[in-house]
């Protein structure tokens, strides 16, 4: 058979890939999405941003992107404040109780002109020490930087690292929940669409029940009864409630394919139902499954961000884009815009890339462009 391999013609996915490769927007967005995946892989294995929770800079350190190149992030040694991380759970000021002096304070805290400061030649060394000896080992002094590439939050944590960690959480939750929801939707949809009759009636009933409750309300209601917060909980909530759209699409596809002649031919040979459903038909609807995973990932990332923002999402000792935006809301009033921009920008970049990629792959999968139709 080895000689025969060269005879194989280009299959559906190869052709799709070729069309996708010709779509410039699609390729660029794919590269961006892949870069995000690289980042979360590195971050998941602790290669980067594992120390996001450390106070490495002064409170609300301003951003200074060019400091990386010029190494101008001046470090100062100051007595360790009482600003421990337990404070995170402290309720944030509501908008209504905003300090009337906020604007003035904001002015005071605007980035300092670093050129006027003396560059400490030992900064690098000190920073290394500071990193390894962090907080509790040295209760009296701690080395802190006055600026960071993306700035620092109100506890002096590196916003860049926070963003990377937040990306890991949000993307992981979005993707896992999307896989779970698509799996459920496809499985139920396949059975309902292929078998019809009472199996369809039952599954359709479950679908109608879930569909009768607006999605976000259902999610919030489940969040209310589940007292446990955390990534796994969010994935479960989103995954178990979000399968209905996939179900409806896949069910309709299976009903359509069931009547197609190639399925009739397989039935005429006595091929078993399960084999027809998952070996014959599934590859023919797999492009819809793929597009749905992609659409749901984006939707679930958005949902996770909202849930975590409201405090119903990830646990307090975790970070996601949602919890960052929550921090950023109160920081913005003081004029500290960088965490908002970092979290909002990272999310916008990923979601835009993901959506454009979804569009591109949908175009590439379009049967009309295939020249296969009659």
């Amino acid at each position, binding site marked *: 058979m080895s000689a025969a391999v060269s005879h194989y013609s*280009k299959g559906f996915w190869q052709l799709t890939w070729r069309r996708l490769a010709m779509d410039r927007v699609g390729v660029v967005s794919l590269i961006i999405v892949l870069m995000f995946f690289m980042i979360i892989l590195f971050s998941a294995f602790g290669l980067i941003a594992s120390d996001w929770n450390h106070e490495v800079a002064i409170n609300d350190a301003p951003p200074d992107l060019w400091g990386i190149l010029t190494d101008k992030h001046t470090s100062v040694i100051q007595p360790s404040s009482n600003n421990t991380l337990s404070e995170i759970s402290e309720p944030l000021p509501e908008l209504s109780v905003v300090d009337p002096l906020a604007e003035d304070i904001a002015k005071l805290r605007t980035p300092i002109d670093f050129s006027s400061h003396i560059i400490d030649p030992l900064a690098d060394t000190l920073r290394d020490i500071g990193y390894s000896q962090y907080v509790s080992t040295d209760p009296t002094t701690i080395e802190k930087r006055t600026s960071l590439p993306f700035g620092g939050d109100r506890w002096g944590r590196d916003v860049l690292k926070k963003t990377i960690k937040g990306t890991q959480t949000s993307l992981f939750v979005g993707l896992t929940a999307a896989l779970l929801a698509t799996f459920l939707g496809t499985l139920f949809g396949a059975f309902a669409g292929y078998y019809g009759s009472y199996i369809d009636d039952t599954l359709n009933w479950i679908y109608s029940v879930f569909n009768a409750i607006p999605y976000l309300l259902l999610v919030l209601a489940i969040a209310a009864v589940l007292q446990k917060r955390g990534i796994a909980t969010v994935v479960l909530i989103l995954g178990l409630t979000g399968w209905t759209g996939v179900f409806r699409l896949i069910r309709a596809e299976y009903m359509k394919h069931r009547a197609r002649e190639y399925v009739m031919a397989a039935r005429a040979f*006595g091929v078993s139902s399960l084999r027809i459903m998952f070996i014959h038909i599934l590859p023919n609807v797999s492009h819809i499954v793929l597009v749905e995973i992609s659409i749901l990932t984006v939707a679930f990332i958005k949902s996770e961000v909202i849930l975590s923002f409201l405090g119903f999402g990830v646990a307090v000792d975790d970070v996601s884009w949602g919890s960052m935006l929550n921090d950023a809301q109160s920081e913005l009033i003081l004029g500290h815009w960088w965490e908002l921009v970092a979290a909002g920008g990272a999310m916008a970049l990923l979601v835009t890339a993901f959506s454009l990629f979804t569009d591109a792959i949908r175009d590439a999968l379009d049967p009309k462009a295939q020249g296969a139709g009659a």
Partner: protein
Amino acid sequence: MTADTLFFIEHLSIAFRRRQRNPFIAVNDISFAIRENETLAIVGESGSGKSVTALAIIGLLPNIVTQIPVSSRIMYHERNILSISENERRKMRGADFAMIFQEPMTSLNPVMTVGNQIIEVLRFKRHFSRTAARQRCIQLLDEVGLPDPERTTTHFPGQLSGGQQQRVMIAMALACEPRLLIADEPTTALDVTVQKQIIALLKKLKARHQMSILFISHDLALVGEIADRIVVMRHGSIREQGDTSQIFLNPQDHYTRALLQCRPTIDDFPNRLPVIEDFLGERSRVHSDIVKKTIENRNPPILLHADKIYKSFFRHDGLWRKYEIPAVKNISFTLRRGQTLGIVGESGSGKTTLGLTLLRLRRATQGNVTFDRQAIFSLSDQEFLPFRRRMQIVFQNPYASLNPRFTVGQSLIEPILLHRVAPDRKTAIEQALDWLSRVGLSHDVFYKFPHEFSGGQRQRIALARALTVRPDLLILDEPVSALDVSVQAQILNLLKDIQDDFGISYLFISHDLAVVHFLCDNVMVMRQGEATEIGNIREIFQNPKSDYTQQLLDSIPRGILSHA
């Protein structure tokens, strides 16, 4: 260009831009004239460029991808309508020329009443007042032969039958009093009996309204009934043009001759149909003078006996009531080994449902079927499995009958292994390759995906797949209806050869009497689920007992023969 020339198409070439590939040339330097008050037909198979030519005349080609060289001209009233502005062309559409399409169902706006769709033309193109437009609309619907035209104006397209919808399309086109009516395969989606009525209507209207008709069709025989002159196209070029009688009686081009003779007729009984290569000499193909192996035993053993098969579907109505829609009513027949039974009927006659019910792909409501002396409707699915090997089916639509995600090899090997026809995978592959050769395909087909093949090739693959399990009975559900005439002939010949070699019985389902006449020993005529007539093919075609069969036979387009 003579004085009575209405349109003059000169050196028309049309290409479509394609992504990352050379443009596709759909029409290549064609010239012809449409005279006043004549019916000109363009005949060709799929891909001949006939519809593209029609769309170019009316100006409905998608501008973004269409390339027409400046040397191409379509002259109308001494103006080249290819070079005038889009706005001017729009004004001419629906006033100077109108068009009707193949699928009347989708060509009418589903959410607008039939009346409003016609009135719209009268009001916006011909500036009728509201009441005058309504009056004229009713007149037009009456003229195209719709019953109760006044009420029909309030109907939505979905409430009309296919034939009625096409009549509405014609009325809509007539509303403009066009000089030229372009009819693109206007009867292809309709039953033969309806087709005959529509053709008669078009002839009548042409005479009354003093207009020209450009009739686009794949069916040379049909065109012979309506056209004054014929243009034969193939692969974007004109092969031949001339008066209808000349095309039929004295065709100059080999391709025209092939088109005329590839179609089976009900007037003779050839053992084999001539195929297009015989005329064009594209491939030298020696076929021994085939003499049909005479079947020694005139009465071979009975293979399949159907006894009063009844199949109905249920629909819900009102609150709880279910009502029954019978699709097949008490059909009985017998099929002997090595013979072919044709089942003929129009759409909705229940012939396809009957085929599926025999294979237990639909559950029969009542009735019994014995296959090789075994009653098969009472068996469990497990017990029936061995019979699935022995009865197989080939479907109409070659584009849907192969799994697009399976290579041809995968499609062929699966049944072989499932029914253990071959002891191992290696033997299965060998057998599959043999079958591909047997249906006239090369071995490298095995490794390809269906989308790379034409309709005819796909139908050969589907046939090979059904044959892999060496069935005794093959149900052929309109296997050639979706194919071009020249390809039809090849597949029909192949089916005959296979039957002669393997002694398979065929149940041949078709709406096409000529094809049935060519292939079958016996025939059953079905109408609305009932068998109106069953018997020997020669007897029924020469001496039909039922009026319906007679009507069907009369509706077969026979070219200029019907004039004679």
